[in-house]
């Protein structure tokens, strides 16, 4: 790789490091793993960089987020124990359970903490579409590229994710 290529890489990738770290943090739910995922992803990005022909800043961001997302998934597979714990959590916080005891969970915490908890308890598929849409403002098409699923799947996951958040956050119907 020539040094001008390295500079181009740094210009495309480094401005989106906060977005990359935020996504990794939500996918791993852990600062330390998120750092390792982002560093790993940035090295992968460097290797694939010759194949990246986009010029606009938004394209670079979606491209990097796709690599971060795939790295985080590989990371989960490699760390089996975490995957098992997470699957257990997902089962425990399934839709019916969340619907049964929303008040106690929400009233105990501030809105921000309750929200973070609600997001962390979403299944991974749902968590990633929420972060990509609400925090990164990606279009359905961009999310479909990042997550590697059809636009229709993005649409239904996002909707189901929001319905779960609504159930978790709106303890009292008149709150919402």
């Amino acid at each position, binding site marked *: *790789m*020539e*040094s001008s*290529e*390295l500079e181009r*890489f*740094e210009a495309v*990738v*480094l401005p989106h*490091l*906060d977005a*990359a*770290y*935020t996504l990794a*943090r939500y996918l791993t739910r852990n*600062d330390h793993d*998120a*750092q*390792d995922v*982002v*560093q*790993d992803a*940035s*090295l992968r990005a*460097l*290797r694939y960089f010759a194949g990246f022909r986009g010029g606009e800043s938004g394209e670079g961001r979606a491209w990097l987020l796709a690599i971060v997302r795939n790295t985080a998934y590989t990371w989960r597979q490699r760390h089996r124990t975490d995957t098992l714990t997470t699957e257990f959590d997902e089962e425990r916080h399934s839709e019916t359970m969340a619907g049964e005891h929303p008040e106690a969970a929400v009233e105990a915490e501030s*809105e*921000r903490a309750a*929200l*973070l908890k609600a*997001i962390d308890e979403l299944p991974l598929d749902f968590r990633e579409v*929420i*972060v990509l*849409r*609400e*925090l990164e403002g990606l*279009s*359905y098409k961009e999310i479909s590229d990042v997550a590697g699923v059809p636009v229709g799947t993005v*649409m*239904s996951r*996002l*909707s*189901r994710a*929001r*319905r779960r*958040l*609504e159930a978790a*956050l*709106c303890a009292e119907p008149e709150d*919402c």
Partner: protein
Amino acid sequence: MTHPAFEALLDAYLDGELAASDAAELEQHLRACPACSRLERRRRAVTSAVREHLPRFPAPEMLRTRVRAGARAEASRAERRRVPLWTAFAVAASLAVVALGSRQLALRGAAGEAITNQVLASHVRSLMPGHLTDVLSSDQHTVKPWFNGKLDFSPPVYDFAGGGFPLLGGRLDYVDGRPVAALAYSRRQHVINVFLWPAERGRTAGPRAATRQGYHLLHWATPAYTYWVASDLGLSELSDFAALLQRGDSAAAAAVR
């Protein structure tokens, strides 16, 4: 209870992802159906709460430094893989000529060369994910005691944050057939590794410089310690850093006397 397919359409509408004709039809329905328009209000409230309150996590400065350093290490590795064999021979031949005529390539001898390569390899390895520090702290009073019981010497650890070279942490490494102390410092986005171990029979050596694969290495020996410093930082700034270390050691030695 609404149909999930309708909810998904409503969400797509709120996200501005619905075609104009579908959006018009949906709006018409919302005006006519109180239950659906209640659902719409709830969705808007939840979505705006998420956008407003869901925290973003800024990348830690340390991560930024590591990503940059890692990219540079990877780029120089890729560059080396790409060099054709005949070019490598030509470069080696021209370097040999330069070495014969120059005093600058001061690191000579098979033993010195082997240590140079080990230090370089350790430096590059430390830039790979999760390898830079075993003890992560910018506090010299945390890093120094961490080595207790792990090495047969207690390495001097300085904090040069005031001089623009903050301490990142320390780790154990293995160079020249023995465990050594490795201390990581940073300068802007650059990582500096300091390797040190007790000097042999009090033999001192003056600062010498070498450049390998785009990294600069400095070596010197005080009566107490053998030092190696490696970084992709420019040679003049790296020399400033070495001078800080040497001043730190002289001050410590003077205090003992």
